[in-house]
């Protein structure tokens, strides 16, 4: 099965690859997936005092679609408020990257990574974590 142009594009030129200081209070880190399942995503956000995501970085172990999904997620996160970021739905990623059904789990993982990074940030800053829907898997 051939990859969509957008997947190839993100895969070839991944945006925002890297690492933020996970110990910083302004950084939230989400690490989701499992090596045995063939994909692990680490997504990090940096949030300013106005609750705006000023930076986002990722590293992903996985197939091309998983890498593209996380690259796209970091691109979308930058400039959004945390509340706006929470509204990103995995189906938005599926649509944007034209992922086939067998790759939908990659987008689910990216959504989980976003939410898990936000919760890490909230907990670090004395807020209660959001209840995460566990219906995906």
């Amino acid at each position: 099965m051939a990859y969509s142009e957008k997947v190839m594009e993100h895969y070839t030129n991944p945006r925002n690859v890297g690492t933020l200081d996970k110990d910083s209070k302004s950084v939230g880190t989400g690490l989701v997936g499992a090596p045995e399942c063939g994909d692990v995503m680490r997504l990090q956000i940096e949030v300013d005092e106005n609750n705006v995501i000023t930076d986002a970085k990722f590293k992903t172990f996985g197939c091309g679609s998983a890498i593209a999904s996380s690259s796209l997620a970091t691109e979308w996160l930058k400039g959004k408020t945390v509340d706006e970021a929470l509204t990103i739905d995995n189906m938005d990623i599926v649509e944007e990257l034209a992922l086939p059904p067998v790759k939908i789990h990659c987008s689910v993982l990216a959504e989980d990574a976003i939410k898990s990074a936000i919760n890490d940030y909230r907990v670090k800053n004395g807020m209660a974590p959001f209840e995460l829907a566990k219906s995906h898997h």
Partner: protein
Amino acid sequence: MELPIYLDNNATTPLDPRVLEAMLPYFTNKFGNAASRNHAFGWVAEEAVDYSREQVAKLIGCTEKEIIFTSGATEADNLGIKGVFEMYQDKGNHIITATTEHKAVLDTCKHLEKAGARVTYLKVKEDGLIDLQELEAAMTDQTILVTIMYGNNEIGVVQPIKEISAIAHKHGALFMTDATQAVGKIPVDVNADGIDLMAFSAHKMYGPKGVGVLYVRRKNPRVKVTAQMDGGGHERGMRSGTLNVPGIVGLGKACELCRLEMDSEAKRLSGLRDKLETALTQLEESYVNGNVNHRLPHVANISFKYVEGEGLMMAMKDLAVSSGSACTSASLEPSYVLKSLGLSDDLAHSSIRFGLGRFTTEEEIDYAIENTKKAVNHLRDLSPLWEMFKEGIDLSKIEWAEH
């Protein structure tokens, strides 16, 4: 050098132009049905089929009458296993095979289990070879067939066929082997190896797709299989259906070329394979899968830890290879062959199979080495697991959220 480079010769091989040349007349003016006994068109076709039988027989050391032409190795596996089970039901119902067999064997055995067969699936050792003592222990007076592949399609390990057939025979069972990856690549001799039935196909040895062979021994012992298709009684009644004359001519020619060129070709290919393997295992945390002393000359299966196979193949976009990663199949399960060796799922996900062939050049291997190294390094830069490994974090201690 043309890109992309084909390094997936265990999946299929290109047709050798010499094979194509031999086949062409049998598509056009020599189009006869080999079963037409009463005119020249039929005789020409029959003669071509007989000649092919000789060429095939010479390669594997049998007689012409022991060759049953089929549509490929999958059909030959089905015919051999189901045919023996049905023919020898009175003697017993027990079949022994191994967990690393091709699906054509495993699924056929599963099918027979529903029909009353008892099947033992031998585990393999870490290097991919079966344990002969376990085989010996699994034999019973009900065992009618032992079927163990010659060379493995994913990792290339070659089983100790002579020893296996000796154990089968000692207990009065027949020995069958799926030799699809081995015939034409390494010396296979049905008498020296003690083989009673053997399946293989043309398209893995530079012949056409859609044609294969079931070798069925005629002497010491005389083996019979129950036909799985009813019809005109072709192939001594064991496989009905009009013979695929151009395909069979191609198979014969392919066998002849393999026989004549095997020695020099095996040396050349193992040299290139070793060069590739030596260069790629210089990368940190890369491991060769399967026994390196008993294997086919043209296969290398390497796991690059902390990168995922499908993602890696995307980065190796000028190389046509395959991976044991789940993502390459619809099942989302990593290779059952690699898992049978005791590889953890993450290492199975990280594996790449390089399959060299007759048309692989040294220049292509040099390119493949550079391309693969670059791709592995690129993906490790993207891999959170690689970063954690480099920081000294024990990944096995992390509680991963299985999904």
